[in-house]
Each structure stands twice: as C-alpha cells, then as structure tokens.
C-alpha cells in the first residue's frame, strides 16, 4: 500500500482508480438510461435549459417493447446464439485434438505446423474477408448461418489450440505413462487421463471462444444479406438505422440486450475468462 499521509492515498490511488472506473463504465450507464428514455426527453438538445442527461425523469419501456415486437431482434439473438455455440463447439473439438498432438506427440513437421497455427492466430479477419466472401459464394453458403459457423473456427481454432497447448504441457508425462503401463492405449490415455485434467483449460477456451464469436462483425456483415439471417451486431447496425435516421432509443435497447448473454456468461465465469485472456497472450 502507499506509505505516508492519507491524502497521498487519495491522490495516487482512489482518485485515479475512480476516474478509470467512471470512464470505463459510463457508456454502459448511458446505454441503460437512454434505452428507457421517452423520445420527448431523448431528443432534447444539450443546449436546452432542461437537458438532464444523467437521469431519466419518466422512464418508459416503449423502446424495448418496440425492439422486441417491431423488429427481428429476437431472431437475431437466436441466430447469434446458434452460430456462437456451434462454432465454439467445432473449435473446441479441433483445438483439443490439435493442441494435444502439438504439445505431446513427436512427429515430422510438428514444429512447422505449430508455427503455422500460431501465424493464423495473428491473421486479422479484415485481411481475407473479400476472397473469403467469393469462396463462401462458390460453396453456396452465402446468407446461411453455416457461412459463419465454418469461418469463425479460423480464428477460434488457433486460439483454442494455443491456449490448450499450455495446459497440456503442464501435465506431467508420467501420468500418461502410468496409464499406458496399465494397458491403456494412447487414444484412451488421451481421452480418459489427459482431457479430464485439462477441463479448466477447455472451459476457459470455450468461454473465450463464445464471446469472440458473439462479438465478430465483419464476416457477419459481408456474408449475410437477408434481415432474417443477421446476427445481433449486424442487425442492430443495419436494420435499426433507416436511411439517415437513427432510432437511438431502440439502438441503445438493442445494444444493451445484445450484450446481456455475453455479460451473463462472463459474470459466472470471470476467473475462467481471465485465465483464457491471459493464457492467450502467454508465449
């Protein structure tokens, strides 16, 4: 802790931390108060004398009700959930097997393949979205959830593999060798001895992968075209802005509700999420 007088603790610790928290969380508060603000209060210029930004005098649920009944928001949520879950499961499956192979088996080309997967980990989505869009079209996957379910693993698998390799490397070889001396095959030792030990890692990778696919934007924007197929991010962006008119009440309600599933999962698994985050940047 900071030594010395009490004021020093305020100046060097409480005030900076308070300012950070205010800055980081204010936009969420702003989403919340805007989403329950009636249009009459919402579209009052900041120069107006009765502009009261931090509080909504007459809260209303009209924007949220409109969002749920007048738009396809619920459909977008369901689409996003389906896409995020399936692509996460595919990536976990691939990442688990690949991570095991790369961290515990010796085979020719293993090092090169590991480097290759690390490099794909660094490829940003914006590098390949144009050629990928024409490939998706050629495969007749355009405007279907499968366009995203099959492409999201390209950034999720490298992440899962990388994270799980770290967990596998930490498991002592003797455990596997004991199982094999007792007559287990390599396959069974992997399935029944190694994978169960790596469950915390699998959970971290899964939660992180889920939030990454929930947040993905450019692939969803380019590969999907009809309103019924869209994900939350794209639906809110393209369908709640009509022409030049921004429906701010609905937009903020959509932003708030669209964040709920991720925030919900995050709140239950903060430790696993942080482990995934910090594990992902460990070399």
């Amino acid at each position, binding site marked *: 802790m900071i030594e010395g007088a009490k004021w020093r603790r305020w100046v060097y610790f409480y005030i900076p931390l308070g300012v950070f928290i205010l800055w980081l969380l204010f936009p*969420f508060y702003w989403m919340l108060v805007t989403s329950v603000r009636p249009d009459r209060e919402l579209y009052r210029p900041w120069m107006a004398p009765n502009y009261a930004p931090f509080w909504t005098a007459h809260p209303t649920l009209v924007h949220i009700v409109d969002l749920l009944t007048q738009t396809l928001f619920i459909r977008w949520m369901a689409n996003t959930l389906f896409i995020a879950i399936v692509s996460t499961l595919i990536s976990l499956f691939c990442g688990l097997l690949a991570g095991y192979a790369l961290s515990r088996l010796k085979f020719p080309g293993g090092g090169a393949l590991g480097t290759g997967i690390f490099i794909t980990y660094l490829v940003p989505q914006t*590098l390949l979205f144009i050629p990928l869009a024409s490939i998706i079209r050629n495969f007749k996957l355009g405007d279907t959830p499968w366009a995203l379910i099959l492409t999201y693993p390209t950034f999720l698998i490298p992440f899962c593999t990388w994270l799980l390799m770290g967990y596998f490397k930490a498991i002592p070889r003797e455990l596997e060798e004991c199982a094999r001396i007792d007559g287990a095959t390599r*396959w069974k030792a992997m399935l029944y001895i190694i994978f169960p030990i790596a469950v915390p890692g699998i959970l971290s990778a899964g939660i992180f992968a889920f939030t990454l696919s929930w947040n993905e934007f450019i692939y969803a924007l380019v590969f999907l075209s009809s309103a019924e197929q869209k994900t939350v991010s794209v639906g809110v962006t393209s369908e709640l802005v009509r022409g030049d008119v921004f429906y701010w009440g609905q937009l903020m309600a959509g932003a708030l509700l669209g964040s709920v599933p991720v925030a919900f999962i995050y709140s239950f698994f903060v430790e696993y999420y*942080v482990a995934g985050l910090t594990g992902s940047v460990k*070399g």
Partner: protein
Amino acid sequence: MAVSDVISQRAYVAAPQRSAATRLLEDERWLAAVLLLPTVILLGLFIAYPFVEGVWLSVTDATVGVPGHFVGLANFTALLHDSIFLVAVQNTFVYTAVATVFKLALGLWLALLLNRHFRGKAFTRAFVLLPFIIPTVLSTFAWKWMFDPTFSVINWTLFQLGLIHSRINWLGDPNLALISVIIVNVWRGVPFYAISLLAGLQTINPELQEAAAIDGARPWQRFWHVTWPLLLPVTMVVVLFSVIQTFADFQLVYVLTGGGPANATQLFATYAYQIGVGTGLLSQGAAVSLAMFPFLLIIVVVQLLYIRRVEVH
C-alpha cells in the same frame, strides 16, 4: 456348447480387426495425423485457400459476378496513385501508433492500481473488463450517441464545467474525427492491457520490491529498475496482439464515421470494404486489404525478434 463357440469365435475374429486401428493410433505419427486432420482441413479451406484466392483476385480485374482477367500489378500501382488510399495508410499508422501508446500507458497504470490490495478488488477487476467483453459494435453505438453534436452528454459536461463555450462536433469535424475514434479504441483496449499486465505483475515476486525498498530505492526507481524489466516480455506480447488488431481495425470506424468526414478516418480495412463490398470492385478491394499484409508481416517479425531478445536477457 455351440452357441458360446460361435460367440468366442466371433470375438476372436473381431479382436485383431479392432486392434489394427488401435495399433495404427499407437504410432505417434498416425495419431498426430488423425488428430490434426480436422484443424488442417478447416484452416486450409478458410485461411490458406482464401489467401491464395486473394492474391489471385488482386492481380485480376474481377468485379462481382465477373471473373476478370490477369492484369499483373496494375491494381497495386493504381493504389500508389490513389490519394484516398494514401490517406488511409497514413491514418492507419497514426491510429495504430497513438492508440497503442495510450493503451499501454493507461493500461499499465490501471494494472498497477489494481495490483494493490483493497476491498472489492475482484469485483472491480470484473467490472473493468466490461468494455472488452461487450460486443464492440454495440458499445461503439453508445459512444456514437455520446458524440452526437446536438445531444452530446460530453459537450454538456464540458460546457457545465466551463471548459467549452460552443459545441464540439466530435465526429463531423475532419480535424477531430480521428482523435474521437482513437478515444473509443483506447477505451475498449485499456481493459485488455490492464488485465493482461496485471497477470504479469502478479507473477513478479514481491520480495524483489521489498529488497529494493530496503536498499533505499524510491517507488519510481523500484518500478523502473525492478518491475518494468520483469514485465517487459508479457508487455511485448500484449502489444503485438493489440497492434495487429488495431492496425486491421474495422468495426469502430465503420460504426462511428464510416471512414468520413472526407476520408479523415479512413483505414485500410474500411477502404477495402468500401471498394470491395460497397462498390463491388472485388480485385481492387482485395488489393487494398492485401496491402496490409507486408506491414503486418514486418510488425510481427520485428516484435517477435524483440521478444526473443528480451527473453534471452
């Protein structure tokens, strides 16, 4: 008995069959090949193939629905004379450099604050990460609304504090727009830096700090000579990831300004999108986004070499 004979005979036949596959999987090479097959197929189809396709597209004159002919490097030479592209390159570098410096400085500061013992620490840490986990596009809309020239809560606050006397057009003023976009990028990235660096800080043995304090080192000296060198490897990896993501950023700008006003916030990715998807000039769009590749490659190679050097020391 006859029945049991049949069963045992069948079991006898089945056993070597099953062990043929098992025996194959006992060989490390075969097992590795089987385990890696799904990953290699998916990454091959949706990373390696698009990359080749992208290179091919960028040397043709293809548009949507028209296959196009080979035109050599014409698309790339055209880019060198494209003033918007040159602006986008410049913007991308400014955006990446400025945002990264602020994210690192503020993230490190926040990490040092969070590394202290105080009540509600776990709770605070969980809340601090929110900007990073909430879908970027959605939280960016909150910022767009906060930046709105007519209804801006930021303008109101600054006005009430007596810092401004007329409205600030955060996203509409070409001189301010890039700064506004950078503010949002820093907002979103600081939690990532803070939490990753916090994890790095927690691996540093506190006895080192105490030893330095006993030797008479002041807090600033302790940070600079003890903490910072030990934190450097983690920092470099965090910066590597962040720089790549920032350099290739798309969604923030797409939501806030769409690259405007007058291309003041145009980046590589937004320009590629505008040309490739908006106008349908596939080959030129592919050329714009592929032009990112050499820069990214240089960034990655330089940083990896630096990380290796830091880790050796």
